[in-house]
Structure formats: structure tokens, C-alpha cells
């Protein structure tokens, strides 16, 4: 990871010096072990604060949305697909963005880190594919691959698909199967079981909206949850409203979601909201052979049509 960090700093510094970009969006070290903070580097000196490791869980494409300047952006595979989506959806122009592509080997899951540590993490170090956490009680080390976020475990595009200046050589893609066991398990449930499952899944939600605010797709000027005329959804903690929010949000992401996992990483209640978006991602692939964000010139599946689209639902 040290290589990545050094390369990102060098590339960013050069880009800023040359004036090719006005700013670089990346990560700096956070104030807590195991957390990095999205950071806007404006000068070559700022670029020296940029870092990269396995604790860069948010999706930096989220920070591109309203920018008017020339932006360099550090992007892992999923972030790069959201940059494509942004370009397709005209949130930003291709000319405005310089992608510093990071071949990604996955991000650690905050809950798995917590479980490994078994207490307050005082320091976290990463070397040679191992993560070591120190607590007041002692040190624990584990393979990074055993600590990955769920979305990283089944990642199919670890290398950026849009990549102006690679920060490192590509990493091998490790997954060949699209199987999504978690979704298939839910599909196999009876309707009643499924109802109970989602009821329990969403029961802790406080409607803090960290999931949608961490999501690069959620850029609507007024989200449907904030509309008052008509008011689509109540604002209290009625389970009907909580379910409505999560389900509708997932549908808004259908065919656009890159399974970056930022929603789950952001959720303070550790709700597995990808179990909703994952089903839609799966359907989009099965029905339309569509994977979100792979190019910057094709509209998302539900935003366009072809004469080959399945149409057996038309009776």
C-alpha cells in the first residue's frame, strides 16, 4: 500500500503543478485507526497528505457531483464505474475529470475489524496482506482477505474501468462467478419469511440517511423522502415508512448501482442495505446483461431500451 500512496502523491502533485487539474479528490489519514477521510487536495503540498490503504470505504465519485472545476480523482474499480455513471448522467463531463486509477484488493469491513479486535482499536497496521490491530488487551493479526467487506468479497471489477493515470499495475481479477449467495437465500424464502426477514433487517434504521448520502447515485436536488407535495413517505419511525424509503431508494439505484458498498460502510446501525440493491443488480444482469458503469456512453438499463429487451411481461 505504501507504493500506492507514494504513486498517488506523486501523480497528484504533478497534476496540480501542471495545472491539468485544479484539485484532487482522495483520502487522507483519519483521526481514528481504521478510518480514512475524503480529502480535497488543492496544492502540491496538500498532495503529500494523500494516502491509500484498505480503509478507504467511501465512494469518492460522491464528491464529484456538483464540481465545476477540473478534478483529479483517486478511484478504485467501483468508484471508476460511478464516475462513468456520472458522465452518462451528465453530472460531470469526461473532459473535467482525470482519473487516478487504483487497482483495488478490497476494503476491510468495519464490523469484521471490530470483531477481530474485540475492543477499542488503538492502532491498525497493514502489511503484506495482513492487518494487525492493537487494543488495550493486546495485538491481533488476520489476513486482510478474511476481513473484507461483503461487496469486496464478490467484486468482479477490482481494476478501474476508466483510468487516465494508473497508480499501479492492474491486479488480477479473482472472481469468475456472479453468484450472489445472500440474494439467492432471500429469493428462496417464502413470502412470509421474506417479509419477516426484511422487517428485522430494517428494524434498527434511524432514517439518518447515511446510506443515501454516501451514495454517488443519490444526487436528486430533492429526494422523494423530502417531498411534501405529495408526501410520498412519512417521516417517523413507522416500519411502513422505513421500508418504503429503503425499497424505493434501492429501485432508484436499479441498473446504476455498482455495488461499491459505501451505503453499508456508512450505516451506523450496520444494516445490510445491499441486500436490496443486490437483488436489482442481479435482475439487471439476468434480464438485460447489464453491468452499471462499465462505459461512459450507454444509458443505464432502466433508462433506455433495445429491441432485444425481454418482453414476456407484456400479456
Amino acid at each position, binding site marked *: 500500500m505504501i507504493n500506492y500512496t507514494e504513486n498517488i502523491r506523486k501523480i497528484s502533485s504533478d497534476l496540480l503543478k501542471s495545472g491539468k487539474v485544479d484539485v484532487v479528490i482522495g483520502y487522507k489519514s483519519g483521526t481514528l485507526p481504521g478510518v480514512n477521510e*475524503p*480529502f480535497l487536495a488543492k496544492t502540491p503540498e496538500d498532495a503529500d497528505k494523500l494516502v491509500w490503504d484498505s480503509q478507504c470505504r467511501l465512494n469518492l465519485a460522491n464528491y464529484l457531483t456538483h464540481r465545476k472545476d477540473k478534478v483529479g480523482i483517486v478511484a478504485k474499480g467501483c468508484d471508476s464505474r460511478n464516475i462513468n455513471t456520472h458522465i452518462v448522467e451528465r453530472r460531470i463531463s469526461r473532459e473535467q475529470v482525470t482519473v487516478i486509477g487504483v487497482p483495488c484488493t478490497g476494503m476491510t469491513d468495519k464490523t469484521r475489524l471490530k470483531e477481530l479486535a474485540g475492543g477499542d482499536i488503538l492502532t491498525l497496521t497493514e502489511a503484506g496482506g495482513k492487518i494487525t490491530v492493537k487494543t488495550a488487551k493486546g495485538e491481533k493479526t488476520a489476513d486482510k482477505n478474511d476481513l473484507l467487506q461483503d461487496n469486496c468479497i464478490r467484486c468482479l471489477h477490482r481494476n478501474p474501468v476508466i483510468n487516465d493515470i494508473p497508480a499501479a499495475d492492474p491486479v488480477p481479477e479473482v472472481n469468475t462467478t456472479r453468484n450472489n449467495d445472500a440474494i439467492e437465500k432471500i429469493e428462496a424464502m417464502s413470502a412470509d419469511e421474506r417479509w419477516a426477514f426484511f422487517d428485522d433487517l430494517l428494524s*434498527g434504521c434511524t*432514517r*439518518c440517511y*447515511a446510506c443515501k448520502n*454516501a451514495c454517488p447515485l443519490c444526487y436528486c436536488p430533492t429526494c422523494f423522502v*423530502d417531498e411534501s407535495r405529495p408526501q410520498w413517505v412519512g417521516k*417517523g419511525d413507522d416500519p411502513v415508512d422505513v421500508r418504503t424509503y429503503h425499497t424505493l431508494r434501492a429501485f432508484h439505484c436499479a441498473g446504476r448501482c455498482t455495488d461499491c458498498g459505501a451505503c453499508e460502510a456508512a450505516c*451506523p446501525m450496520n444494516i445490510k442495505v445491499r441486500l436490496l440493491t443486490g437483488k436489482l443488480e442481479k435482475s439487471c444482469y439476468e434480464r438485460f446483461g447489464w453491468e452499471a458503469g462499465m462505459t461512459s456512453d450507454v444509458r443505464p438499463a432502466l433508462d433506455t431500451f433495445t429491441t432485444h429487451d425481454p418482453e414476456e411481461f407484456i400479456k
Partner: protein
Amino acid sequence: MKIYHIDRESWVKGLAASAEVYQLVGPVREKDDFDFKVLDKGQMPDLTGTDTRLSPKALVFPKSEIMMTFSTDPNDPDCNIMKEAKKEYPKRAVIGIRPYDARALQILKMNYDNGDYQDPYFLNAYEAITFVGLAVNSPSSTDFSTSCGTGPFDEKGLDVLLVAAGEEGDFYAKILTDKGDAWAKAAGFSKEAGSDVSTRIEAMKKTAEEAISSKIAFDKIEKKTVLELFEADHWENTAFACINCGTCTYACPTCWCFDIQDENFGTKGVRIKNWDSCMTGLFTLHGSGHNPREHRYQRTRQRFMHKLKYFADKYGEGIMCVGCGRCVRQCPANIDIREICETMNK
């Protein structure tokens, strides 16, 4: 006031006895974390965690609370007339609340009883509670409570301070108020601790306070003007990572802002009070479409200006933060109040 020594057996018996008179509330395991819940008969509070994920503020300021009910049925003689919702406030004992969290609820009370108006929903719930707090012997690395006018052994918001006494599940219970005394009587605690107990508790307090390495300072913020702090040029940088979700405001024990909403079910309806967050654009959006806090950084600035300056200036009781560290730990973007306080205090 008295200090009792409670051994494990008396503790279990005492809680059961006090449950005859009080509704007991305490931290329990909720999925992968802790939350304050009304305890079932015979259920013991789980005191193994340091902080509950959400603060205990929901006990006095629920996430969503019915304030009034109404009918919009034109045939109802009371059509369109708001009725105060019928509520009961049973006597409650909250077991195992952390001292800084109890202090936080006192801060909330300053807002909900502002001299001119009293919020009956908050105050009735608050007054019904006897706070049986548990001192923090091993503070977390994100605990900075001692910088915030409270601490791991702070007695201000409590009626009883429990201190884990070292032996197997034993407690010292320091009675701090008449309310606390009444609860201890209901529990039947009577064995007074030895004469050296005050010294022992003081020593434990000192150890706990010294274990806190995380500190903040706001002495310079106090002296600066509101406009100087507000107009400082760092805010856009400071707030860059913030995604303006409500995680910090909902986890925070001192964030008191709320929304009022009507909900209809046919011709019946309720007016409810919901947690709200200054992080959202809707919070301040005018009917005209104008928004005084249109930009994301302005909302982040509001939160910290409120906590570290407006509140301090208005009440003269320190900052609107007890240093529990929940927002620091839960923020998805690593917005850290300690760091922002340092920037403001330069």
C-alpha cells in the same frame, strides 16, 4: 449521603425488588450493539458495554413521538380539534446510564424548559426517571468527557452513582439525591460500605480520569466573536468530507432538534415530534425556495457553531457536548469534533 456496598446476590434481588415499584430500563444487547430498553421481568441490564450505540436520549426524547391526535371527519363534533395524546409516565429507574450521558440529558432539559415554555413530553418523561448511573472505569479511546465539564464519574445528572467495586460483580452505590435514596430503599439496599469507601471511589475516579488521553480545549473559542468564528475561511475545507447525513445528530446525546409532522390514517390522525437534523437541507428551507443554509458546508458549520459557540454563549454552561465520542466513532466520513474544535480554537 450514604454509600452502600451491594454484592452480586443483593444486586439481583434489589433490582427485582425495585422492579415492583419502578419500571426498570437498562442497556441490553440489540443485534450487534447495545441500546437502552425497558427490561422484562427478571431481565438484568447488560452492563458489559461502555456506551450504547445510540445515546439514551430516546428515553426522554423518542425518535418519533405522538404529541396530539385529531379527527378530520366532518361528522365528528371535535373535527379538526387537536387533543393532547394520552400518555403515562410510570416511575422509571434507568440503570447503568453513563455519567456523561446523564449530564447530556440535563443539557437537553435546558432547551426543553426555556423559561417561557415547557415541553411537557420531555419534562414528564425526565421527571419520572431516577438515574442510576454507572461510573466508567475503563474509558474508551474516544472518550473526551473530562474536557467537557463532565467525566467518567460525574455525579451532576445522577440520582445514584454505581461504581463497579472490583470484586465479582459488586457495586458501591453512592446515593446522590432523595430520588436515589427512594430507589435504594425500594431495592432494599442497606449494607453501608466501609469507612474508606469514599477514598477508594476517589482513587478509582482519578485512575479513570487519568486514563482519558483524548482532550479538547475551547478557551479561545469563548473569547472569539460569533462572526469571527462563523466567517473563518476554513469551513469549506473542514466540512469537505461530510456527507451531511444525520448519523452524528442522532447518535448525539445532546442534539435536541426536532421536526413536527402530521400523519393521517383515513379521517384519524396524529401530530408527531420526530428527531431532526441540521445536516439536512430541508431543515431550513423556506417556502419561497430560498435556503439560508443551501450549501453542505454551511450545515456542518451550523452543527459545530451551535455546539461549541452559540450554546456556550447562550447558557454559560460550557459546550453542548459531553465528550462521549459516539459521533467520532460513527461518522462515516471521519468528521471529528475534536479536530474541528481544535481548528476553531486556534
